[in-house]
């Protein structure tokens, strides 16, 4: 249990998707103009990461890794399908996003209304594929650990996008040098927020 909590907290603060690895920067920059929309996108990311990371974990464990096919019989024990990783992961993500969208549409029209346009965008959000690839690289031991990592990174991403959106809303009233307006200042502020987040690095959990 302690392991799970430590993975969870670590993936929110220390290995924050945006400030430590720059994943999902595209939608982070494009959608962070107002707090309301950024909360919607952030929740959608938490949702999709929480589902796709465990699913990809199972696929990696029982289909792709070296010797993962041994449950089919001894003939398959030394089959290594690792080179297919990218194509399988991205297909899983694209179809999962589609599936989640359909389920939400059917059972929760209110949630669908608020997430609406963001869900399809998420299929090409680097944070999702990045989450799956980090999960593979860091070799988590169980589905529970993979889920904790997925949800944690999602929440870290949510935290970052809501933070920048709030700052950008306030910044409308400040006097930014003209060539730096818009994109430039957003980059620099993200850098400064990243420096602030780096203080978590010293913490050992």
């Amino acid at each position: 249990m302690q392991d799970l909590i430590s993975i969870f907290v670590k993936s929110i603060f220390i290995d924050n998707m945006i400030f430590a690895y720059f994943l999902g920067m595209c939608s982070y920059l494009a959608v962070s103009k107002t707090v309301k929309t950024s909360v919607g996108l952030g929740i959608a990311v938490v949702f999709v990461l929480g589902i796709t990371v465990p699913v990809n974990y199972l696929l990696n464990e029982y289909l792709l890794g070296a010797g993962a096919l041994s449950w089919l019989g001894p003939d398959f024990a030394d089959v290594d399908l690792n080179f297919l990783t990218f194509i399988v992961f991205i297909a899983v993500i694209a179809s999962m996003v589609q599936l989640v969208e359909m389920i939400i549409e059917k059972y929760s029209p209110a949630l669908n209304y608020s997430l609406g346009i963001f869900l399809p965008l998420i299929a090409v959000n680097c944070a999702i594929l990045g989450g799956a690839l980090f999960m593979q690289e860091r070799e988590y031991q169980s589905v529970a650990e993979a889920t904790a990592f997925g949800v944690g990174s999602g929440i870290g991403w949510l935290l970052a996008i809501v933070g920048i959106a709030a700052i950008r809303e306030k910044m409308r009233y400040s006097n930014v040098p003209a060539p730096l307006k818009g994109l430039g200042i957003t980059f620099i502020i993200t850098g400064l927020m990243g420096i602030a987040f780096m203080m978590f690095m010293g913490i050992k959990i």
Partner: protein
Amino acid sequence: MSVEAKEREPLFSSKNKKLLSSPLNRENPITMQVLGICSALAVTAKLEPAFVMAISVTFVTAMGNVVISSLRKTIPPRIRIIVQLVVIAALVIVVDQFLKAFAYNVSKQLSVFVGLIITNCIIMGRFEAFAMANKPWPSFLDGLGNGLGYGMILIIVGFFRELFGSGTLWGYPVMEQLGLYKIGYANNGMMILPPMALILVGVIIWIQRSRYRELIENK
């Protein structure tokens, strides 16, 4: 015969040259269109991985543009995203296997970021905006130009971060050779850390927009 000859453009007509050069300058995919930052910045702490990343992305964009543009009449519009993703993923697998075979150390350094070329928005963006509507050769040039424009920013950022962060360039100890350590120069450890990459890109955007005043955003 003569009609055909008239319709044919020379391979490097001024229009085609512009396709290649404008992404390097005004229409830079990173600073203007805000595409492809995701997998870009984490690899720029040193010059070498930045360079390899730039070449890989250029390869995938250019080849992917050619493939999509040759298939553009046969791809059903409804499922085009999936088709595009499969093409990109296949090309990225080629790059990944190639790097693992011939440049293993760099491939280890880049770790998951080779895979993340798949979700690099530049590639999808170019497929949607250009390759779906143009012939293979202009698409190839467009892909090449955008890949190079992206690579240019990576290499500039990588150059400054390695030079001031570790005092080396491509592993060669520049600052030591210049004898700067003896007179009390110290490396700026901050440059190696992730946030500095963002601030450097911010500064590049600042410089570009002060040069071309018409690019300034009003909001």
